[in-house]
């Protein structure tokens, strides 16, 4: 039963990460991405996936998909119907699943965040409906497969389990909310393990949308820079295998890290603009720390939402200053969107994996595109690669519409 839950544990259970899969424009898998993030390599380049001649901005961060997907339980027909977003998701899920050494079980919750699902198929559906109103060939498949739940079900089919599948579409906070939602499910005893993450693929409709808002940078994505002028769009996916600590211990799993806190808040200021002082961001960070019983001075690294837009970075910087208080000047912050662009529904999940990399490998990712940090930042914005002792990290995700989320991770020693 989804409700009421089984008898809840007296104390919330600890939730650990035993597998992490990641696909970004930096590459496929942990190692390629760790190497890229560690150096702060930028992967923004001219768009090749769709026509951009009439767009104001003509660059984004594209993933180079492999020729073939990993060996899978999907039939050739199913595999042939996967769209770009579905492929990104499965690539990330396979890496996480392999790393965790999981076996399928009948009920295994899947919680995914996305903003577009299979939007490229939705575009194709509409284009054909408009340009060839009586032609129906291919349309039923496009209708079914553009829906986000279909990618979740493909994931279930691939690994041989039945979900349930929950899709959270909280814009750019979707991935973080999905991981947070799964974390809450596990810690109160609703399941012993869950797959959680986020995914989104570049598509023309969303690209044109951000371009129409003049939110895309015509130069370089430079979060927290005084001369920042917008974001770059990217694509990718990240999937985590989450388990309760007792479950992971029982099966002798290798633990990569622990999620210790999650906070959310809703910003009602404006559909596309944050409240200027970052009140909701502050509330989300504070709530995450409260659940983890961690104080800001214990946080070694903050992976900022840091889109590179003037308004977001201003509000987030103010929120971080207020949240960190006296320890602000010691806090190290960067936004890895400088490397891979904004991955929308995948952003929060990928940035959680970046935090996990920092905790596992004891380095902090820089923003090599940063020239002069905005003086409003009272914290250190990392611009060069740093090796550091990292015990606790926080990652922020803020979405269109006001969904704000923060996740706290701790090193597993």
């Amino acid at each position: 039963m989804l409700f009421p839950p089984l008898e809840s544990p007296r104390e919330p259970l600890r939730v650990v990460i035993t597998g992490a899969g990641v696909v970004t424009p930096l590459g496929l898998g942990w190692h390629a991405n760790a190497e890229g993030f560690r150096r702060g390599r930028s992967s923004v380049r001219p768009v090749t996936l769709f026509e951009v001649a009439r767009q104001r901005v003509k660059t984004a961060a594209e993933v180079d998909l492999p020729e073939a997907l990993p060996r899978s339980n999907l039939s050739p027909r199913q595999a042939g119907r996967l769209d770009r977003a579905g492929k990104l998701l499965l690539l990330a899920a396979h890496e996480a699943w392999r790393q965790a050494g999981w076996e399928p079980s009948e009920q295994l919750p899947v919680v995914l965040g996305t903003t577009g699902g299979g939007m490229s198929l939705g575009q194709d559906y509409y284009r054909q409906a408009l340009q060839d109103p009586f032609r129906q060939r291919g349309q039923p498949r496009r209708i079914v497969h553009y829906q986000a739940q279909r990618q979740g079900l493909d994931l279930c089919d691939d690994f041989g389990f039945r979900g349930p599948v929950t899709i959270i579409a909280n814009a750019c906070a979707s991935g973080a909310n999905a991981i947070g939602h799964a974390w809450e499910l596990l810690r109160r005893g609703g399941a012993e393990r869950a797959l959680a993450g986020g995914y989104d693929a570049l598509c023309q409709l969303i690209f044109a949308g951000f371009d129409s808002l003049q939110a895309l940078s015509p130069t370089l994505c430079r979060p927290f820079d005084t001369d920042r002028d917008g974001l770059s769009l990217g694509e990718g996916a990240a999937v985590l295998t989450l388990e309760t600590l007792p479950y992971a211990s029982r099966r002798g799993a290798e633990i990569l890290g622990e999620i210790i806190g999650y906070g959310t808040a809703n910003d009602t200021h404006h559909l596309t603009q944050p409240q200027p002082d970052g009140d909701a961001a502050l509330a989300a960070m504070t709530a995450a720390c409260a659940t983890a019983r961690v104080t800001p001075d214990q946080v070694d690294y903050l992976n900022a939402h840091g889109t590179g837009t003037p308004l977001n970075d201003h509000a987030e910087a103010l929120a971080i200053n207020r949240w960190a208080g006296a320890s602000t000047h010691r806090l190290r912050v960067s936004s890895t969107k400088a490397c891979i662009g904004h991955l929308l529904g995948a952003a929060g999940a990928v940035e959680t994996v970046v935090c996990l990399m920092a905790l596992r490998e004891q380095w902090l990712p820089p923003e090599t595109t940063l020239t002069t940090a905005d003086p409003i930042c009272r914290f250190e914005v990392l611009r060069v690669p740093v090796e550091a002792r990292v015990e606790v990290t926080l990652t922020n995700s803020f979405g269109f519409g006001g969904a704000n989320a923060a996740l706290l991770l701790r090193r597993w020693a």
Partner: protein
Amino acid sequence: MSRIFVRGVGAVSPAGWGVSSLRSALERRHPLPAQPLPRPGRVQPHWARAVPQPQPRPDFLRHARLRRCSPITHYAVAAALEAIGDDLASVQEGCLRLGILVCTMAGCVNYSRRFWEETLRDPATASPVLFPETVFNAPASHVAACLGSTAASHTLVGDEGVFLQGLAVGANWLLGRRADACVVIGAGEVDWVVAEALHLFDRQAIHSDGAGAVYLLPGDPRAGGVELAGITDAHSLAAGQTRGGALRRMRSELPAPSPTEVLFLSATTAGRYGAAERGAWTDWTGPRVATKDVLGEAFVASSAWQCVAACDGLLRREFTAATVSVMGSTQQAIGARFVLSPRTSTP
């Protein structure tokens, strides 16, 4: 552990604005009239049961956030306001942390279609006013702004079953104290793109739109009321599971049939498309209600109306227990049960 009670319901449907319109239409049991829905490029229109214009125009539509939004948002806000009722003041005063869950399948499809149309014509002139409203969580954002809630807010996307998933998420938020109260909204809007998509799968179905909302509060069972007794697992159509198999598993989690309990089905009473669901409930001995026979196919709003109608009947003490069965179009079978708990003593 405290239990979860339904303290209010709200609805906007082709029958009109408000639960009373929905109730009257379901009591009459006559399919509501459909209107032609022009389809560009074709002479032959689609048909739809759209929400009528509200008469008089409600005051809340003057809110700045609602001036340029998609109709789905108007429906969602209206249903939420009706469900929450007098508790709105407590939310706006900051005394009640209201969680918001908006569940949808196609989202703000009117604006998505218009924006895409402009982009196909010339991306350089596509309107920046339209794009933000295409985002799935735009309605949830507007609902939160209109209600003045800064507590947790999620948009869940899925097939018709996602509304019941949303109820479970909301109930668990309340148990986990993420919110003091929670409004769960299922919404959709009519568009020729969706009507055409529906027609490809079910030629008898008539597309419709609107929203339904259920307002949940934790409570002491001694106080009585309409209780959310349970929500089954979401049995996905994955890993070889058929519709029949998913429905059987869903049913196995619900109590045995009772002649006094009312069943609210997502299937219509005739037609090939609902056959699996009707087949799963052939042994049901109590009354049954097929809301889509009257209202049409509004996807997630349809499953919300099923729950609203069930809870409305319980709140009015017309029956003492209700089961809601949802066989979604692409994702899952899921069920819910609501019961009227008698007041036993002063809590």
